[in-house]
Every structure is written in C-alpha cells, then in structure tokens.
C-alpha cells in the first residue's frame, strides 16, 4: 500500500515538474485546449474567450497561418502552457498580455530575442571526464596534417558543442566557454534545459530528463486505456481523437507534422480493440504514418523530426563498455605483415564512435533515426520513451549494463 502511495506521489511530482513554471499567483486559472483539427484563428478566439480576453491578431490579421489547422488536446492546463502548445502546433508565437487583456500572435522567428537571463555553469567534473576519455581512447590525429588545420577544442568548448547539438539551441545566442565554465544568455526555459542536461551528464551513471519521465508517466496512462474503434477508411484524425479524448494526457501535433498530415483525407488501417491498449495503437499509428512521439512543454508531442529541439533525452555512461572493447580489440590483433590482418586498437577504430555508430545503425534498422551525441564516455540519446528504451536494449546487447537500483541511475 505504501509502495503504491509512493509511486503515485512520484508520478504527481513528475507531472507537477512537467508543467512549465509560469507562476501566476494572482489568478490560478486553467483552460481547456480542445482543438483537434481546429483552425488556428478559431482556437485563439476560444482560448482568449476562456480567459475573458480578446484575441488580437495584429500584423498577422491576413496571415495564412491563422487559417491553418492545429491539433491540441490539453484540459485543465495553465494559460501559459496552453499558449506554448498552441504556438508549437500552429508554428506561431502566442503570448498573453494580461495588462491589456489580450491574446497576441506573432510569427515564429527563432532569431527574435525572447525574455533573457544570463547564467554561468561550472563544468569542472565533466571536463575531467572528457579529458580522461581523450587521454585513454581519443583518436590520434592523422599524420601529415598541419597543426593549424586540426580542430582541437578544449573540453569546455567540446561540451558547448555537445549541448548545442543535443538541445538544438540554434546559431543565435551561442554560449561562451571560459576556462572550465560555460556562460549563456538565453531564455529562462533554455537556461533550465541547459542546466538539466549538464546535471544529468555529470551524474555518475547518466540518467533521464524530467520530460522523459513525464513521457513515461503519460504513456503509462495511455497503456491503461482500451476501446473498440475503427475499421476500413478510418481517418487518422478520428483515431487520434479516440486515442486521447478520454485521457487526461495533454498532447499536441507539432507544426511540421501538421503540414504533413491531411486530416480531412488521411486514413489508417490501425484499429482499436479491447485486447490492446491505446498506447499500442499510438505506436502502430506512429509506425504507419511515420511520426514520432516524445514529450515537450509538459505534453506528448507528435512530430516528424528528432532534430527540432526535444527536451526528452537519456544520457548513458559507457565507460565500462569502452574498457571491455579496449580488451576486445587487443585480442583481435594479428601478427604484423599479414594480409587481412588487424593491427589497430580501440583508439584507431574511433573510441566511443564505435558504440555510437553501432547504436545508430541498429536504431535505424528498427525504424528510428534519433539524435545521438557522445561527449567522452557519455552518450545522449534524444527522443521519446520508445526510442530511448530501444537504445538501452541495443547498448545492453553490446555489453552495457544499467546501474543497479539505488545507485543513482536517475531512472
């Protein structure tokens, strides 16, 4: 009983963490975003109406984006969270002007400055991990290249590159690497994401992002739902609605994916029956329609590209696998001067890249092409629960072992 309570409490904590922290102590309002295939302008009018505000399209009055469809289903969420989800599905930037009681919309311009803060991150521990890795397994630079033609970043500079790739921070507002410190001037949300990734990477056995844990909790809820639905000619939009309509899991279809869907005509062969869960059907639909599922903005995200900035990731520590591989490659050495011989070692084979390449190939064989990035012996896999768990399975097939319970796995 106490275990059950603890589990429930954990899920509640995780869910609470997932809700973007836009504290509005004055009015603890919530809204219902039920826009499954709704025209953006109509959704924004409804959203503003729920707040008792007015929708003000401003310069976008004539914009075609307002006539395109969005797909959001999130009940009882904060207005700020709702604005995030509508923005992400509509490919625009929705904001709430409490002072003038307006809901505003603007083009989604990545370069536009958003609310910023400056934050500095100490990276001593990670730099040490990287330097030790480089000394033991780092690829030796090819002979013949002029020294100034080689890119030789410091551990901090390499970490900055890794963070930018994993979180897809974009070219604007880059971080600064100063000694063993990284400094960023970005939005508070970005700074929080950077801080979280650094914490997870620094942890002895890696771990998961909070959004990935939320993802697990949401999928768990879907796995408990069953219904009978569908048949020949079922619309994808109808199945999506059936999957989520009775579930308190917030979900949205990313803007790029919305452009790929034709909600009026796209049909699916996936059906629902009482022998299988809504989660099984969602995975089947994802495979059939070629989309992916992860978690962003505290909601399940249906999207088509891992490289659009996800907050769902897991970091694996593969130090033990590297140590084993070092021995394996030593065993695979042949005598000198023989044809078909091998005289290399783990360094010459690429160090951690041996693992990353295999992980990438096997994930690709399973129908996934997620973002993978190594930093020394730490490998980040960006994606939803199904991708990350498949990656863990592949790493286990390579000899990696998850840390035991209570050892800070972070899972």
């Amino acid at each position, binding site marked *: 009983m106490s275990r059950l309570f603890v589990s429930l409490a954990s899920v509640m904590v995780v869910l609470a963490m997932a809700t973007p922290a836009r504290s509005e102590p004055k009015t603890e309002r919530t809204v219902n975003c*039920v*826009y*499954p295939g*709704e025209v953006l302008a*109509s959704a924004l009018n*409804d959203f503003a109406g729920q707040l008792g505000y007015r929708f003000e399209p401003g310069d976008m009055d004539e914009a075609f984006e307002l006539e395109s*469809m969005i797909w959001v289903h999130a009940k009882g969420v904060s207005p700020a969270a709702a604005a995030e989800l509508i923005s992400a599905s509509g490919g625009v930037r929705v904001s709430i002007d409490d002072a003038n009681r307006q809901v505003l919309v603007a083009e989604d311009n990545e370069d536009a400055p958003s609310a910023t803060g400056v934050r500095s991150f100490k990276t001593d521990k990670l730099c040490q991990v990287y330097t030790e890795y480089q000394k033991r397994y780092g690829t030796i630079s090819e002979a013949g290249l002029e020294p100034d033609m080689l890119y030789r970043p410091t551990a901090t500079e390499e970490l900055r590159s890794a963070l930018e790739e994993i979180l897809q921070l974009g070219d604007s507002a880059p971080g600064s690497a100063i000694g063993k410190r990284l400094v960023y001037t970005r939005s508070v949300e970005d700074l929080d994401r950077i801080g979280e990734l650094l914490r997870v990477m620094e942890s002895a056995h890696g771990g998961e992002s909070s959004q990935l844990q939320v993802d697990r909790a949401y999928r768990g809820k879907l796995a408990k739902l069953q219904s*009978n639905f569908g*048949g*020949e*000619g*079922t*619309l994808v*939009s*109808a*199945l999506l*609605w059936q999957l989520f309509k009775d579930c308190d899991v917030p979900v949205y279809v990313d803007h790029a994916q919305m452009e790929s869907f034709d*909600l*009026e005509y796209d049909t699916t*062969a996936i059906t629902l*029956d009482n*022998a*299988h869960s809504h989660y*099984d059907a969602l995975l089947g639909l994802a*495979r*059939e329609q070629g989309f992916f599922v992860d978690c962003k903005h505290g909601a399940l995200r249906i999207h088509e590209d891992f490289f659009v900035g996800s907050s769902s990731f897991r970091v694996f520590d593969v130090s033990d696998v590297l140590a*084993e*591989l070092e021995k*394996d*490659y030593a*065993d*695979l*050495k*042949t*005598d000198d*001067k*023989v*044809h*078909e*011989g*091998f*005289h*290399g070692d783990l360094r010459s*084979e690429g160090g951690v890249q*041996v693992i990353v*390449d*295999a992980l990438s*190939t*096997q994930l*690709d*064989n*399973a*129908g996934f092409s997620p973002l993978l990035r190594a930093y020394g012996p730490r490998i980040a896999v960006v994606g939803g629960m199904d991708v990350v768990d*498949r990656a863990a*399975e*592949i790493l*286990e*097939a*390579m*000899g990696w072992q998850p840390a035991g319970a209570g050892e800070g796995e972070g899972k």
Partner: protein
Amino acid sequence: MRNFIALAMVALLPLAVCAQDKAPKTIHIGFYGESAYDCAEKLAEQLGAKLHLHDLDEETLDAPCWLVRDEVTPQAAASLFAIAAGYQVSLDASTSTLHVYQPGVSVGDARVKGYDVSVLSGRFVEYVNNYGAPAVAQRPNEAPEPERTAAQHLADALDEILYDPRGGDSEPSVVGDRLLFTASEQGHARVREALDILVAEHGGESEALRVERTVIERLKAAEFSAEIERTPVASVLTAICKAAALGIVLGPDLAEVAVEEHIDFPHKKGTSALAALKQLTAQMAAQDLPIDISVREGTLVADLAGRSSSRGYRVYDVTELLKKLDASYQRQRTAPGKDEGFDGDVRRAGGNRVVLDSLEELLDEVHQGEHATCICFGTRLVVRGGCDAVDAATNILKEMGWEESGN
C-alpha cells in the same frame, strides 16, 4: 471543432468490430494466379487475422501468386506467401494481424540481439597468423586500405550466408568481438544457427538443407505418370509436386510467366517425380526460361534462375586440408634462384583462397557454379545452395584431400 466533429462522424460510419475466431492450427492454401492482394486478403481471412499493408495497396499488389500447400501452420503459411508475393510478410499472433511490408524495410517485430563471436574471431586471428597471405607493400601515394577486424570479416561472411533478396535489409554492427543484429525472431534463429554451425568442430549443414534432402527423397520415391499437353508451366510443376504429396510455391518473377506459358510435357510413364522435375527444368532452360528449385517450409520453391533464395548451406572445416596443403607446398619448394623453381608456401599462394578458387572453378565445370555461393572465413568454408550444389562441392573437396569427419 465543428470541422473535426463532422470528420469524426464520417469516420465512425464504417466502425466494424469483428470478434476474431480462434486461429486455426493448420490451413490449406490454393492460390492459382490470383493477384497478390486478393491472395493476401484470402490468407488473412483463413488465418482469422486482420490484413495490414505497410506502404502498399491493391494496385501495387497486382502480380499473380501461385501457392499450393496442404496442412500448413499459420506461421509457415505467412512465410510461403512472402515468397509467392515477393514481399516481407509476418503474422503477429498476439494481435492476429497479417503484416505485409516492402522488401528491405525493417519489420515491426524486429528486436536487437548481440552475439558474442570471440571464439570465431579468435580462430580467424589464428588462421591469419598461420596461413594469412603476406601484406602487399603499399605503393607510393596510394592510400592504405582500412584494416578490418576478424569480427568485421565474420559480419561480411554472415551477410552472404544469410542474404535474402526479398527479406529485410538489416545491417549488422560490429562492436569489438560482438555482432549486433536487429531482426525478427526468425531472422535471429537463422543468425544463431549459422554461428552455431560455424563454431561447431567439424562444421555441418543447415536445417534448411536437411529439409531439402528429405523433400528430394520424396520426389525420388514418387511416381509421375500424368499426360500433359498444352498446359501452363505452373500447373505442370504443381502436378509433379502433387505426385509426391508436396506443396509448391512459385516466386513472383516465375509466376508472371509460368501462369501464361503453355507447354507439352512428353515423358516416360512411371518415371520418378524427381526425374520429371529435372526433365521439366531442362526443357524450360532450353526455352530460355531457366528455373531454380529450392525448398522452404517443406514446400518446393521454384523461381527464375538467380532469383531463388535457397537457405541451405554447408560449413566445411578445412583446417586439416590447409595443413596438408602447407606441407605439400613445403615439399614442392626448390632451391632458391632456379629457373622453373618454386620458393613460395601456402601463405603466398593465398591461404584459404587456394581451396576456394579451385572449388569455384570446378563447380562451374560441373554446371553447379551458378547454383552455389562459396564463402571463406578463416578455416571455415561455406557453400550456400541446394543439395546438388552442396554435394558437388563435397565431392570436389574430397578430391582435394579434405576428409569427412564424424559430423
């Protein structure tokens, strides 16, 4: 919102929930040239399963299918239909769904498994150290060829041994002395079997080859006496198999032709079904329609030559033969610097290539070359093909000095 509700209402119209009957233990299949789509629907119905086409539709599945088989299990039926249709087919018993995929894509039930190949890798290293040809000196300005580990050589060998032209395209990964494959349960079973036979002390034959031998024996024992005039080739093949109480499946390329092409088939009365089959394949080869015969799921598979996907192979351990060759090359060494002299050894002659090259040449001589693929991995030699090709290879190896061991 109104838009959506309207759409959802339309979508609800065809709502149909069918209770699935319990899946049958065995079924009878008789597809005689209907389109692959019709056959897929019929098969799904017989299996009490839903049909799920992945990136395929009725129009793309329009080629004729020829598959006749009694008393076949649902999984074997799916496997045979895959050959007939030329697509990947899997039956998911847990969801009662018959999935049809394009060749080359990963199928839904694929899982990853890692295989420890340290023993085989160790043997390869030993082989290279003992018999490996000397490294060729690098020419000036020539980039060195990337070195490959024993496990990488093994991955290449397995790729050839397990190649299936209409199967999934799942690239293995080599990590140290481990091989990783993402495959279906059936795919993993094939990888496991190949590794087990490769590591076995004296090599051995694949299960598919053993099954093929039993089918050949049945054909040999059966009498074929039917009188055949102006009959489609597909029907003649079916009649021969029926005489031996065997099923038959035609590959899609052969089915296209064999359903239409009518022939007379004069033959001696009371001849064996095997002899009739050989006579028919010879007759078709003379008419520029060469046919390969193999066996899958205890069913005869006929396809255009070069398109078949025989899964039979035999692994030979040639360690002792290499030792003999090493000794014989040593004996043939002459004093250095003599005209017509020989100063080499088995290493310089090419190690296992000495055996492999001769075997390939001689298989060609006995007209089995096109039916066999020969692959070397250190002291292991693999011949992939049907019984005739493998038996011909065994005889040739014996003539080279290879001796059958107690396997």
